[in-house]
């Protein structure tokens, strides 16, 4: 029977060896061989005075150190916005501009999807305020293909950030790097300053839905959640609670293989919420949802963000995002094309006023004479680019012109998206 003992000892040996390797990797990472522990710097700029402030952030200790770039900048850089984004709408227009490590492509909007620095911070005081998700100089190559190229952005609590780009732009790869599933070639992606694998309790920190299809076809929805709940150390009752929340209770005991795409997507959403995480990362959550489902998702995300969570949600369909997100990040061919608050983007890319009516030709002449940019839009319609509805209305009233329609042209965000990503014409 000696050999049985020996066999057992060696089996125990396997387990110890496996876990020893794990711990070894853990300590090596903690010792700082990765990119995650290096101090990084960001420069914050006061848009009014041009005062620049360099912020050193040591991920190892979590300390932030604020230094003026040039003598005299202390005084000039005090007017940086004092609110955390999303909590105070009145302050949104005053967001401090932040420059990135990588140059922004010319012609794109200045980015503001980034933490704001409070006056208190500018004077050097230390606070716990930081970006929840921070992606810095991220690059990922698969062989010859560059999936993501030097991408940087961050997401703070209480915001819904739309992550947009055509299919194959590198959205999923970025999210998978953020979640520790794919190893970056360069750069880092952190949550609360740590890489995903280093989080003390990942399921309670971050909830993610990457592919709604990630369910065993032969396992029931309820058991799928229970399996994950056990691994996360979450009470099994939570699974039932979430099934109720995503309206799957009725189908919970059926095999997931029979679920519709939308049901699987909702099951994935329930899985993401198991640990009641502060951060949500959702990759194309609206895939497979019908219009009601998309609306449900939108309200659902709104309520989650209202609870102070940070949400990063990717999509290749702009319409899904346009009514949900606070900020948008647009990427194409793995590069950041635009990062801006959605409202700002909408205003910037205003589609102009559309006027229709039998006398629209005369109105066009009058407005042109006044220096307005007017374009004919066919069938008696004109589009006025640089006049408000009220201004046009006054001209109409003053000259007794008959119009049948006066309305802002539908937001041309879709066009902006195509323009930015160069995806016009044909599928990419």
């Amino acid at each position, binding site marked *: 029977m*000696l*050999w049985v003992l020996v066999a057992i000892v060696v089996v125990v040996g396997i387990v110890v060896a*496996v*876990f020893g390797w794990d711990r070894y990797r853990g300590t090596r990472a903690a010792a700082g061989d990765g990119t995650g522990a290096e101090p990084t710097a960001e420069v914050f700029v006061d848009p009014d005075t041009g005062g620049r402030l360099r912020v050193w952030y040591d991920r190892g200790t979590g300390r932030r150190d604020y230094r003026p770039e040039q003598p005299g900048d202390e005084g000039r850089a005090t007017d940086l916005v004092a609110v955390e984004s999303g909590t105070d709408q009145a302050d949104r227009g005053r967001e401090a501009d932040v420059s990135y490590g990588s140059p922004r492509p010319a012609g794109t909007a200045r980015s503001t999807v980034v933490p704001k620095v409070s006056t208190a911070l500018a004077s050097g005081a230390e606070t716990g305020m930081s970006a929840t998700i921070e992606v810095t100089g991220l690059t990922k190559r698969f062989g010859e293909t560059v999936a993501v190229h030097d991408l940087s952005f961050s997401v703070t609590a209480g915001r819904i950030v739309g992550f947009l780009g055509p299919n194959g732009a590198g959205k999923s790869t970025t999210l998978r790097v953020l979640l520790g599933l794919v190893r970056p070639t360069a750069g880092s992606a952190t949550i609360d300053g740590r890489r995903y694998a280093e989080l003390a309790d990942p399921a309670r920190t*971050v909830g993610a839905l990457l592919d709604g299809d990630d369910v065993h076809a*032969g*396992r029931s929805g309820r058991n799928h959640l229970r399996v994950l709940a056990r691994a996360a150390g979450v009470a099994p009752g939570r699974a039932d609670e979430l099934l109720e929340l995503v309206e799957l209770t009725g189908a919970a005991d059926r095999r997931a293989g029979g679920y519709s795409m939308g049901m699987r997507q909702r099951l994935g959403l329930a899985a993401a919420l198991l640990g009641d995480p502060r951060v949500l990362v959702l990759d194309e959550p609206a895939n497979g949802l019908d219009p009601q489902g998309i609306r449900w998702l939108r309200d659902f995300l709104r309520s989650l963000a209202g609870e102070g969570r940070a949400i990063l949600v990717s999509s290749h369909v702009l319409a899904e995002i346009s009514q949900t997100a606070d900020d948008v990040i647009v990427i194409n061919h793995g590069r950041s094309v635009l990062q801006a608050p959605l409202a700002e983007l909408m205003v910037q890319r205003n589609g102009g006023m559309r006027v229709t009516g039998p006398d629209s030709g005369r109105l066009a002449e009058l407005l042109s004479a006044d220096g307005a940019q007017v374009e004919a839009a066919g069938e008696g319609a004109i589009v006025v680019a640089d006049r408000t509805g009220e201004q046009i209305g006054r001209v109409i009233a003053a000259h007794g012109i008959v119009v049948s329609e006066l309305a802002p042209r539908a937001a041309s965000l879709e066009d902006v998206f195509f323009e930015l990503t160069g995806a016009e014409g044909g599928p990419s």
Partner: protein
Amino acid sequence: MTRLLDSELLKLRTTRTFYALVAGAVALIVIISALGTALGSFKATGDPGRSVLSVAGLAPLFALVIGVIGMTTEFRHGTITPSLLVEPVRTRLLGAKLAAQLLARLLLGLVGFGVCAGLVAGILSSRGIHTGMSTGDWIAAVIGGAVATMLYAAVGLGVGALLRNQAGAIVVVLAWVFVIENLLGIIPGGFGDGIKRYGLAGVGRSLAASAGHGTRIDQLPAGLILLGYALVLVIAGTIVMCQRDVSS
């Protein structure tokens, strides 16, 4: 760690695949060994107990396939993504998976070999045929068979982690055991004999004490060699798994 092991055991209990494979293995063992023992004619000089007990060798083969499926099913259904989101440290996930398989397959081995031994011993003695095995021999065979079953599952798990593709990995392990080792065993001389003795199939049979006289080695060395195979494959699978990009 317990929560991960719990989760892995629940995974095994919540799909039909594993029930079907375990039930299939036990049913085949029971039917074949019962019929074989009841109807077979045994030479007085032979080793009837051992030769029928070799039917229980189906248990390790099923365990090999179950081990492969246990790992590859995560890739096939994409559940590796949620699994790694809950436990991003891959060695821990694999460790839990391995532990769950070892426990569950040890049980399968004990049931498979135990039931087979009971049937064979019972039916042979009722037919008045001498089994040629002492009680100690029976116990050693059952325990050895159970350990072989357990280690085969580990081998399957390692191969699954290396290859990821479910159908491919199953074909590879079965082809290895049934075709490649048999072909290599035909090679005359020391090499062929070595394969028969020390190959994956050979050490499994020796560990279960059901190998033929010509190729049998002692249980202890057989167990250690099989353990070596399992270790190499599991460690290789773990290393590959830790380096790999998981992109659905």
